[in-house]
């Protein structure tokens, strides 16, 4: 009789319930709450009551977790590049063949021994800083086994050159809005707390700028917030979507869609301000109290500044392509109704901020919100994704909170501290490696202070070695960084003497490594994690996600690691042991013991024992634990301890929201003056000569855009927003059924071509028909896509989603080869936003398009994965269940 086991886990698409039968995962589904779980919150608004469904939800991607676990492209065995030669001096290793060569299967002992020897050789020869490493964004989940903890502990104990992440999803807000309203510790983002309740009670208009919430959801969450937006729509709140692409949420929900030309959103903001100033429809009292140098900024808007150009709607129409009448209508609607507005999936994101003018747009959007009294009821920076009622008195250290890393005390008895000061910067890693010299500003994520944006770095640091070994952990930057052909060049440089790739799946960068270490997925190991409160990847504390329920999950092992894969904990422990500090690394704990430490250092023990937690698999805190908050008739919590974001400032009282600063208790913002700065004092203080991020935020023609020189050769603008069918390079390439969605990819000659959306006018001009293979190209590269002709984009814009996990060059391992995998970031500019702003700008990208031919070669360029499948039949791993093997045998036979 079949034996079914039910376990739980978490992924970027929400918390999971997993059904395993006889050692094979049969089904993943959301968590359905039972009678022992708390009642949900109840929002009473406009004569109705709203409460969440008694279940969590899963995103489309979450439903692929089973496929992802058994995917054809799992790394199944330790592998070593066939023509890799372990030379004593690290030279003559055929580095130029990285990306071209095949691999041979190795034993764990051989692979780990090689890795340990190379670390010793390289650090012994060049110094500790000669080793560098970087994690993926979001390829796994858990407080023990993911990057925040395990990776950090291992490499800090080893000593290495850290590679700072750039805030690739919200560059303009990160580098911009701290200079207008502070919040650098929230990385430029707003306070979403209790905004759902506020909006449902008070808001009349939602402005969804550069935002497709049904696609991007709110970060690590599923579709719970789609219901909130449905409620709001049902109660008559008007939705205005502003996006060059009439996106999936917009076509479903918008009362009005406005499609500005790419990278011109700042001009639209200025024109809205012009209408308000000339018509006197902004909150003058609020601005007088909370604004700094507003009059000078208003003069600039009215044309009394140095450029002597009034920022009229007609002026903006010329730049943005949006009719002046529409601009006036938006401005008047916004000013005359209680309006929430924001950008992108969490209010401070969105493709518009990933343009050369991204900081101007972000700062101007905040300025507009200030002009309408940001923080007053129903008027805030919010986009309908985060901010459900929550119990703020329940403590569990989610990602990036204190007590959330095994590298730190008190989770570890002995914290790990990196002894190397030298750093690198992710966006320009290839430039630094290839050129041997790189300089930049900023600490990557600059949550530690405004000053962090302006720290000066030089690589290599004086007295330090260049890096010689690169350890890549999870995912592929080929799909998320820019001008990524140069990553191929970097990998093929002999300056990198040794490259390790540790991952669950064969990713494009995996094919560039000397040694590939197979990690298991988080369905094959034990961990602990949380979604709802601080689930945003360790970026900033209390960054709520779009969940109705906060869930803490015991991430139990659903199945044993497949094939020869092992948990990241096991892999790092084994390398540490070979380096002589294995015991210090583990402190004698296994994964479960580390997970229990997180349980112990939380409020969870007050509610259930460790054994109860393990047995049930999850815990959901009630929005209130106070009996007096419960309605005696319904048993529902109809009130809870509310801390609405930013209302403290509007109401001039000490800040009472989570994750705040000392000066907020004094009623001040994080700007130098503590007020909304319409002329940025921090820019005048730190970099007054910055020509991109000027003290007064304003529209500027982009160095790559519709008016730049390159527009003559490449007249179309590529829009590559966060994807609907991937999560940064994860999921899509593992779950091939996603390729059957015609809005996503189309199979031609066996290759899943990414859909590119093209306006009919452009298509006619170029002779392109629906379904044709087209080449998107510019001076940086060429990508073959499948054309979808649609009026959802204007003629100048071509839309193709970013973050392709498939990089599938026609000539493998050749720098600059035409890509047929849909990796459009081989087209995007590698140039940083400005000399003083280390931000990437994928949506400032000029291209051309022509009809093309499909590559005749079948398959997805994964030939060596197929080889490994063949090998699988010869080298059955004892740990692989017979049934799983059978599944793969069938797949192989096809």
């Amino acid at each position, binding site marked *: 009789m079949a034996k079914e086991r039910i376990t739980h886990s978490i992924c970027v698409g929400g918390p999971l319930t997993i059904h395993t039968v006889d050692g094979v995962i049969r089904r993943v589904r959301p968590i359905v709450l039972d009678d022992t779980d708390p009642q949900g919150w109840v929002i009473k608004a406009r004569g109705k009551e709203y409460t969440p469904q008694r279940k969590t939800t899963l995103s489309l991607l979450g439903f692929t977790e089973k496929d992802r676990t058994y995917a054809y492209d799992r790394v199944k065995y330790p592998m070593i590049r066939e023509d890799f030669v372990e030379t004593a001096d690290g030279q003559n290793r055929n580095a130029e063949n990285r990306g071209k060569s095949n691999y041979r299967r190795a034993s764990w002992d051989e692979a780990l021994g090689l890795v340990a020897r190379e670390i010793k050789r390289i650090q012994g020869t060049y110094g500790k800083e000669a080793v560098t490493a970087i994690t993926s964004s979001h390829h796994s989940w858990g407080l023990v086994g993911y990057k925040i903890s395990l990776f950090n502990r291992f490499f800090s104990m080893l000593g290495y050159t850290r590679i700072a992440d750039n805030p690739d999803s919200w560059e303009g807000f990160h580098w911009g809005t701290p200079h207008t309203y502070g919040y650098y510790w929230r990385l430029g983002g707003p306070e979403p707390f209790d905004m759902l309740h506020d909006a449902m009670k008070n808001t009349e208009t939602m402005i969804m700028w550069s935002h497709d919430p049904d696609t991007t959801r709110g970060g690590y969450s599923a579709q719970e917030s789609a219901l909130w937006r449905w409620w709001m729509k049902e109660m008559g709140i008007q939705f205005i979507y502003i996006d060059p692409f009439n996106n999936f949420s917009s076509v479903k929900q918008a009362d009005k869609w406005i499609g500005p030309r790419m990278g011109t959103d700042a001009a639209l903001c200025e024109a809205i301000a012009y209408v308000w100033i000339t018509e006197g429809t902004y909150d003058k009292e609020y601005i007088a109290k909370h604004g700094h140098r507003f009059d000078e900024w208003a003069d600039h808007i009215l044309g009394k500044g140095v450029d002597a150009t009034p920022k009229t709607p007609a002026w903006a129409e010329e730049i943005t392509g949006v009719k002046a009448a529409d601009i006036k209508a938006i401005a008047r609607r916004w000013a005359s109704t209680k309006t929430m507005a924001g950008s992108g999936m969490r209010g401070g994101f969105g493709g518009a901020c990933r343009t050369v003018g991204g900081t101007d747009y972000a700062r101007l959007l905040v300025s507009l919100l200030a002009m309408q009294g940001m923080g007053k009821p129903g008027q805030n920076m919010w986009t309908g994704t985060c901010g459900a009622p929550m119990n703020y008195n329940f403590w569990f250290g989610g990602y990036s909170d204190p007590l959330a890393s095994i590298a730190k005390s008190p989770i570890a008895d002995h914290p790990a501290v990196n002894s190397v000061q030298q750093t690198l910067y992710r966006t320009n890693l290839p430039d630094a490696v290839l050129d041997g010299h790189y300089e930049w500003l900023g600490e990557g994520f600059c949550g530690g202070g405004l000053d962090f944006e302006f720290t000066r770095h030089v690589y290599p640091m004086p007295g330090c070695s260049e890096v010689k070994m690169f350890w890549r952990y999870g995912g592929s930057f080929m799909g998320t960084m820019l001008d990524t052909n140069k990553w191929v060049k970097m990998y093929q440089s002999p300056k990198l003497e040794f490259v390790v790739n540790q991952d669950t799946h064969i990713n494009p960068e995996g094919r560039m490594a000397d040694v590939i270490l197979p990690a298991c997925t988080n369905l094959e190991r034990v961990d602990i994690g949380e979604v709802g409160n601080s689930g945003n990847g360790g970026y900033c504390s209390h960054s709520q996600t779009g969940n109705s329920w906060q869930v803490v999950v015991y991430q139990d092992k659903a199945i044993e690691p497949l094939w020869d894969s092992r948990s990241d904990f096991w892999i790092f422990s084994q390398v540490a042991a070979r380096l002589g500090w294995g015991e210090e690394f583990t402190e004698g704990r296994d994964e479960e013991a580390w997970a229990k430490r997180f349980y112990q250092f939380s409020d969870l023990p007050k509610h259930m024992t460790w054994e109860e937690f393990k047995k049930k698999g999850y815990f959901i805190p009630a929005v209130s634990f106070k009996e007096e908050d419960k309605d005696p008739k319904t048993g529902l919590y109809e009130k809870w301890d509310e801390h609405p974001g930013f209302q403290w400032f509007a109401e001039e009282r000490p800040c009472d929201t989570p994750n705040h600063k000392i000066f907020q*208790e004094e009623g*001040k913002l994080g700007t130098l*003056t503590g007020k909304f700065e319409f002329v940025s004092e*921090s820019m005048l*203080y730190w970099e007054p000569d910055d020509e991109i991020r000027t003290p007064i935020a304003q529209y500027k023609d982009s160095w790559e855009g519709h008016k730049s020189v390159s527009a003559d050769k490449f007249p179309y603008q590529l829009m590559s927003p966060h994807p609907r069918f991937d999560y940064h390079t994860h999921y899509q390439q593992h779950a091939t059924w996603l390729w059957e969605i015609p809005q996503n990819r189309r199979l031609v000659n066996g290759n899943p071509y990414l859909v590119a959306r093209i306006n009919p006018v452009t298509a006619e001009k170029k002779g392109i028909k629906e379904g044709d293979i087209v080449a998107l190209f510019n001076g940086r590269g060429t990508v073959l896509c499948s054309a979808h002709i649609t009026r959802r984009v204007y003629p100048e814009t071509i839309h193709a989603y970013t973050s392709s996990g498939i990089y599938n060059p026609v000539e493998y391992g050749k720098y600059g080869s035409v890509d047929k995998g849909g990796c459009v970031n081989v087209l995007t500019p590698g140039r940083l936003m400005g000399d003083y702003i280390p931000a990437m700008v994928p949506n400032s990208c000029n291209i051309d398009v022509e009809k093309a031919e499909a590559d005749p070669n079948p398959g997805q360029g994964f030939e060596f994965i197929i080889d490994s499948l063949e090998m699988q039949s010869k080298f059955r791993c004892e740990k692989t269940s017979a049934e799983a093997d059978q599944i793969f045998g069938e797949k192989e036979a096809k």
Partner: protein
Amino acid sequence: MNFTFRNPEGTQTMTPAQLAAKVKEIVAACPSEMTCAYRVWYEGIEGYGRPTAALVAAIEEAIVAAGGWTAVGPRRFEKYGAVNAFTNDNYATAAKEKDGEPLILHKFKTGSKWQGPDGKIWWIPVVEVFDMRCFEWDGEKYIGEMVEINPNSDYAKAMVEVK
């Protein structure tokens, strides 16, 4: 030498004595443990633009002259970077509240240690406006389980910082 600058009230010209009087007024109202000339300039005077070196020097001189503040040399401020800092001599005994509302973060700092009325010493790894989580400290390391102490409770109010 007089100082001419702009702030919301327009172009201002102050004598050193007038500036010192203004600075004294500003720092007297400052509830923080630490300040600097730039903070006085931006938050107090609401000056426009980065102050000149002479103006910074005059403000620093005025902070010391105001009394109750001690120059401690360069310290890092998140907004201004490393600049000359001044610590509030009366901070330990000052009331940590504003308009009757407690200023939790002004009182309890992450990583600080406090002794309760029962003699127990607590290490505070987490403090937010509602969540304060502590471990008992045995002199060298934390011991036992994580404990929640309400920062507004009588127990917390009776706690004394251990340096």
